[in-house]
């Protein structure tokens, strides 16, 4: 079953009065539930824009062409209000970004608990979920550390714990390994693969690291605001979890 399905997805950014950029020129996409997909392409190909639309951070442009459609588990979410999209992001999606993006004044645990709070989960239940999420990424011991006291890899694992804590249906990651060395990248990819395998979480990664792409079930390639190649489910999908770090480490 497709968890995310989009048609006629367009996005034009207006940089100034005369200068507009057509980032997405009508994209059709379908992502299966439980899939781990990489979206790849050169800079400016529209891969981040597509992720922002799939992650409901931006709405697709409604005019200048056939009406856009975007379905999340069968429900049309293309024209939802900002508030409604925010709610879905809080409860049903998890986000990981390139720059880790933790709140510097909060401890690792508090950063994870932000996501619970926004999803309406508070108190003991939230705290337990937060500690469990940190344990999953191997940072149970570091729960009370501030981001500045953690290494880059550890910070990204905290961000992943934050993305996971509400057990979302989909995790969207924008260049999650972009600021990490190859060993740390391998760890992060292994984590994603583990959640994908063990919890059936759908994972959409935007990357231009081809090794990250190879570690995924499928690679979608973009160029100039259009999808050029929808990719095939590769044999990697069958590779055992522990094999992933080895693949990345050979680089």
């Amino acid at each position, binding site marked *: 079953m497709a968890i995310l399905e989009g048609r006629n997805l367009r996005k034009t950014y207006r940089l100034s009065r005369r200068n507009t950029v057509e980032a997405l020129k009508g994209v059709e996409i379908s992502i299966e539930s439980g899939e781990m997909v990489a979206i790849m392409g050169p800079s400016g190909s529209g891969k981040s824009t597509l992720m922002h639309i799939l992650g409901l951070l931006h709405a697709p442009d409604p005019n200048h062409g056939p009406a856009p459609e975007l379905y999340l588990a069968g429900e049309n979410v293309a024209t939802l209000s*900002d508030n409604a999209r925010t709610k879905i992001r809080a409860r049903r999606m998890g986000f990981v970004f390139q720059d880790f993006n933790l709140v510097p004044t909060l401890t690792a645990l508090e950063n994870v608990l932000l996501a619970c709070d926004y999803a309406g989960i508070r108190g003991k239940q939230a705290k337990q979920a937060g500690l469990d999420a940190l344990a999953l990424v191997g940072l149970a011991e570091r729960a009370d550390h501030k981001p500045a006291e953690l290494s880059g890899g550890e910070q990204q694992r905290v961000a992943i714990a934050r993305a996971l804590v509400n057990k979302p249906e989909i995790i969207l990651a924008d260049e999650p390994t972009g600021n990490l060395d190859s060993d740390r990248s391998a760890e992060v990819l292994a984590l994603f693969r583990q959640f994908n395998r063990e919890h059936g979480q759908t994972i959409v990664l935007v990357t231009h690291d081809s090794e990250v792409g190879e570690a995924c079930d499928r690679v979608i390639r973009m160029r100039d605001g259009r999808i050029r190649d929808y990719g095939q489910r590769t044999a990697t999908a069958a590779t055992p979890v522990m094999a992933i770090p080895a693949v990345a480490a050979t680089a």
Partner: protein
Amino acid sequence: MRLLRDLGRRKLRSGLTITGIAIGIMALVVFGSMANKMNTLISGGSTYYKDKLVVTIGSQISGNTQPLSIATVAQINKVDGVAIAVPGVEMLISDSTGMSMGVTPMITGILPGADKGLETFKMDVAQGRYLEITDLGSPVVVMGSDIAAKYHATIGGTVNLRGTDFKVVGILQPTLTAPDQEAIVPITEAQKLYVETLPPLVRSKLEPSEVATSITVYPKAGVLPETLKQRIDASVPGYTVMTGKDFDAELGAIGSVFSAVLFGIALLSLAVGGLSTVNTMAMSVAERTREIGIKRAIGASRWRIRREIVAESAAIGLISGLLGLAIGAALTYLFNDMGRSSGNVLFLLTPQTAFTAIGFSTGLGALAGFVPAFGASRLDPVTALRYE
């Protein structure tokens, strides 16, 4: 608390903003306390004068009276509608008091019991007793609370008033108005002291026991003070007759000036404090653009972002208010302590003033947070995430 951690990120900037508002709130507390004191004094006077008339030559409020003959008392007693007229002698406790705000310390000579129970302004004795008719002719004194402290008066001890030793027989409870600054003596003793203050030429023609400075007139039940004033003016001309309404008219103006000054200060701290808080919060928001972006991305609603910023801004106001109140309270306490000896007890910090100051600064902080908060909540999460 997260809020305080956020404020602590820029300690200098938060500190300076808080100090700025605290200074405004401190001014508000100090001047508010001054206005309270003034209003208590005035309302005390207003209560005192409400049901009676005071006959003088010259104005009693300005303290600029001339001697009048005790024979006038008998003339006024004959006026229709007068229940009783009582002579009194008032003078400054010392000629060197000079200009002062609030109430000047006075010596008040009274005829104990002469009001026949018509006096409604009750003064309670904290220690010792009040004056009695048998005290006439004896150098005894009942001290008001502030002045008792100034003269270190103790029951049975003596105080020296204008060169004469008086035995302290009573100390009054604080009234927060004029009697706190009064040394109350039998009229006979006040008359002796009073004639000494007059120029020799005037003094030589006067018999001390014939002199008074004011006559307090109690109207009969159902007689309006204003009506009685007209009758006294008609039958005993040449005197100043003051009713409670006259008192209110004269001193109400002073009260309004204080209120206006207070309002001005409030407005000033509103402008200065409000703008500097807006500035501080706007800078905080700008610095945290990325953080706001991430929070929005992972599901914080616009309302949540607004609430966080307004709460932080209100916290700045609250801390400033508490600090300003603490400094203001300390100052008023210190000034009162210093002023007690000279009779200048100028400040009265009431709980209402304290709560108003705190509420005002917290509200101001919250209000100042709204502008940056709305700006922050309208940030596009994706743009904010990329903000350098």
